[in-house]
C-alpha cells in the first residue's frame, strides 16, 4: 500500500508536465485503500486510515471522508476564484517560477496544482465514502 500511495502522489504532482494528474492519483489512492479492505476487512482499513475506533465502536470514518471531499471541492473552487480576484477569468491557471531553492534549483509552481489537489481530495473522499458506506452494509 505505501508503494501505491507514493506512486499515486507522484502521479498527482508530476501531472502537470508528465502523465498523471489529480484524478488518476486519487483513483489509485482509493484502489490502495480498497486493496487493504479486500485483504483485511473494513475495520482494519478504518483503523489504518483514521485510528482505533471510539468507545461506541464507530470510527466516524464517513465524517472524515466527507470533510475530505467537501474540502477538495472547496480547494478546487477556491483555486478558481483566486484568479478572479487577480483580474483574470474564473479558473485561469498560471505558472510561477521560483529560483535559487536549495536542492531543486529552479522550481516551477503551477497554480493548476491547487486545482489538481482539489480534484484529488474530492475523488478520494468521494470514493472512500462510497466504499465504506457500501462496504459496511
Amino acid at each position: 500500500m505505501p508503494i501505491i500511495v507514493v506512486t499515486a502522489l507522484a502521479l498527482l504532482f508530476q501531472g502537470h508536465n508528465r502523465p498523471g494528474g489529480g484524478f488518476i492519483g486519487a483513483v489509485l489512492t482509493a484502489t490502495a485503500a480498497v486493496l487493504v479492505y479486500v485483504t483485511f476487512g473494513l475495520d482494519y482499513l478504518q483503523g489504518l486510515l483514521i485510528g482505533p475506533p471510539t468507545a461506541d465502536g464507530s470510527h466516524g470514518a464517513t465524517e472524515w471522508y466527507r470533510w475530505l471531499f467537501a474540502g477538495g471541492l472547496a480547494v478546487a473552487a477556491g483555486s478558481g476564484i483566486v484568479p478572479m480576484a487577480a483580474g483574470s477569468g474564473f479558473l485561469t491557471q498560471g505558472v510561477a517560477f521560483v529560483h535559487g531553492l536549495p536542492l531543486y534549483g529552479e522550481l516551477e509552481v503551477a497554480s493548476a496544482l491547487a486545482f489538481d489537489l482539489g480534484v484529488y481530495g474530492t475523488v478520494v473522499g468521494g470514493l472512500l465514502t462510497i466504499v465504506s458506506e457500501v462496504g459496511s452494509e
Partner: protein
Amino acid sequence: MIETVLAVVFLPFLGAALAPAAYRVFGEQTAYYAAGVAAVCLGLVWRLYAAGVGLQGGTRYAVEWVPSLGVSLALYVDGLALLIAFLASGVGVLVLVYSGGYMHGEPGQAKYYATMLAFMGSMLGVALAGDLFALFTFWELTSLSSFLLIGHYTSADDSQYAARKSMLITVAGGLFMLAGFLVLAWAGGTTLIAGEGSLVAQAGSTGEQLRTAGLFVPALLLVGVGAATKSAQVPFHVWLPNAMEAPTPVSAFLHSATMVKAGVYLLGRFRPFFLPAEAETLVPEWSVVVLSLGLLTMTVAAVLAVAATDIKELLAYSTASHLGLITAGFGAANGLGAETGAFHVLNHASFKAALFLVAGIVAHEAGTRKIEHLRGLRHDLPVTAVIAGLASLSMAGLPPFNGFYSKELLFEATYEVGHAAGGAAWVFPVVAVLGSVFTFLYSVKFLSLFLGDRPETLGHVHRPPAAMLAPAAVLAVAVAAISADPNGAIRLLVGDVYASTVAGEAHSFSVKFPTKLKPAVVMSAITIGVGALLWPQYDRLHRGVRRLLAGPARANWWYDNGVNGLTTAGRRFSEWAQTGLVRTYAAWTVATTAVLALGAYLVAAVSIPALTPAAGLTPAFVIVLAVAVVGAAAVTGAPSHIAGVLTLSILGFMVAIFYILADAPDLALTQLVVETLVLVLFLLVLNRLPAFYGEPSRLRAIRDGAVATLVGATVFVTVVVSTSASPAEPLSEVLVSRANLPPGEHGAFFTDYGGGSNVVNVILVDLRATDTMGEIAVVAMAALAVLTLIRMRERGETQ
C-alpha cells in the same frame, strides 16, 4: 423610473417575505401591514402613471439577466399594464383591509397575508412584464399563489379539490401558452412583447413567417388556451366556481383584479400581434377563435349562473360570463371590440369586487350563502344593500350604470361584425343578446336577496364591521363615479388601454348615452324586455337548467372522469414500467438512448464514412485487439461471476495497452487505474450475488441480445462518425505546439495555456477546467447520495 417599475413588481414579494415577522409583531393587525404594502405599490403605480411613461406606445425598461443568452428582465409600461396594475394594487388595498375584518380569528393568517401579497406581486408582474420569459414566470406564479389561497383551509377536502383543480387547469394551460411563446419567439427572433423591435412592433413580418410555416393558427390557439384556462372560458370554466372555497376576500381579489384578469390581459396584449393593422378579412382567425369563445362563455356561464344555488357560486359563474364579454370584445376585429374589452376590464373589476365583498358580508353576518334562505336583507344591512344595488345594476348592464356602456359597445361591435360579414356572422350579435338576457336575470336575482320580506328562517343578522363595509363602499363609489362620468374614466385610463390593444392606432375613444335609435339600443331594449318578461319564470328556469345539468352535459363530469382516468392509467403504467428490477431499467435506458442517438443520425442524414485500414496499424495493435476480442467473447461464456469479471478485465487492460501503443499515456493510466478499481469493487460485491447465472428463458435471451446489438451498433456508428471528422487545423497541433514552455521568453509568471507540458492535464485543469469542476462536483454528489440513501433509508416514510 426603472427603480419605480422594479419596486412595483418586487415590493409585494419583499412584503410577503416579511409577513410572518409582521404577524409576530402585529398579530391580527397584519392585515393593515399588508394593506400598507399594497398602498405603497398603488402609490408607485400612480407615480408611473403621473410621469406619463405609459403614453404613446409605452416605455420599456430592461434589466440584464443572462446577457450571454440575450435574456433580460424586460418590463413594459403602457395603458393596459397601468390599468391592470392599478386594479391589482388598488383592489389589493381594499381587499386586504377587508381581510382585517373578515379573517378575524381565522387560522393561518401569517401564511394568508404572505400569499396574498405574493399573489398581488405576481399579478403586477404579469401586468408589467415586457418579455415572454418574465410574463410566463409571473403567470405561473399567479397559478401557484392562487393554489395556496384557494386551498387555504388545508384540511378541508373541498378546498383541496378546488385548489388542485385550479392548479391543474391553469398550469396545464400555462404550458400550452409556453409552447405558443416558443413558436412566437422562434418566428419573431425576439422575446420582447411590445415596444420597439418587439413581437407586436413587427407583427406583420412575424405573422407572415408564421403563416408560411403554417404555424399562425397553432400559435394563436396555443396562446388562446393559456388565456382561456386562466380566464375560465368554456370549457375551462369548471375551476372557477370551486375556487370560491377560498376565503371571500381571496375570491373578490381573484375574480376582479388578479388571476382571471390575467387571461383577458393576455388577449389584450397579443391582440395587436394576431390582429395587425392591415387585417384583410372581416372575420379573421383571431375573431373566429376569440370572439366565438368569448360569446359562448358569456352565454353558457350566464345560464349556469341562473342555475346557481349559492351566492358565491352565482358570482363565480357571472365572473366567467363577464370575462367572456371582455374576451368577445377583444375578439372582435374592429375598434369597437377593443373599446369593449378595455372598458369592461375596469367596469367588471369595480362591480365584481364590490359584489364579492357584499357576498362576504352576507355570508359572514347572516351565516348562510344559500340563495333560497336569503331575502329582505335590506332591513338588516341597509348600507350593504345600497352597495349591492349599485353593483348589481351595473352588472346587469342597465343604463345609466357603467356596465351598460361597455355592454353597449359589445353590442355595437358584434352588430358591426354581423353587418359587415353577413351570413353566419349574424350569430354573433344574436348570441350577445342571449347571453345578456341571462346576465340581466341573475343580476336581478342577486339584488333580490335584499328585497322583499325577511323570511322567518333567517336568524339575527349582525352589522358588518367598518373594516369590511368601507372597502365595499369605496368600490361602490367607484362604480357610481364611472357611471356618472364614463368619459372621464376613459380619458384618464381606458383610452390608453385602447391604444395598447389596437395595432397602429394611438387615439382614444369616448362613449355617450344613446339618444338616437341605433342597433345597439334596440339590442339593449330587447335584452331588458325579454329579461323582464322571463323574470317571473326565474325559478322554473333555475330548476330547468339544473335538470339539464346531469352527467356528460356538465363540463365537471368530463374533468372528474378525465382526472380519475388519468390517475388510474398512471398507476397501471407505473406498475408495468417500474418493476423494481435494475435490469428492466437498464435495458430501457440504454435502448432508448441508442434509439434516440441512431434516430438523430438518421434525421440529420449523417453519412457513415467508408472504413479503410488506418495507416500505421502495426502487428502489436492487431495482437492487442485480437486478445481484447477474445476476452469479450469469453465474457459471454463465463461460467461464474468471478470468471466473467476477470475476463471483462482482460478486455479493459487490452484497451489500456492499446492506448499506450497509440501514444496516449494519460488515457492508458486512467484506464488501468479505473479498471483495477472496478475489478476490486466487483470482487467486493460478488459474494452477495448468486454464484451462477440462472438459465435464461429464450425470450429474454433474444431481448437482451437485441438490446446489446442495438447498443453495440450505436457505439460503433458514433465512433466511426465522430472520428471521421478531420478539421483543417487540428486542435491537437495547436495544443502540442504550446505544450512546452518557450525557453527564456517568459517572465516569472506565465499564464498562457496553463503553462504545463502535459496536454491532457492542461485541458483538464485549464482549458476545460469548468468541466472538471462539474465532474468532481458530480463525484461529491454521488458520495452524498450514497450517504443519504444508505444512512437514512431507515428514517423514511415508514416511521
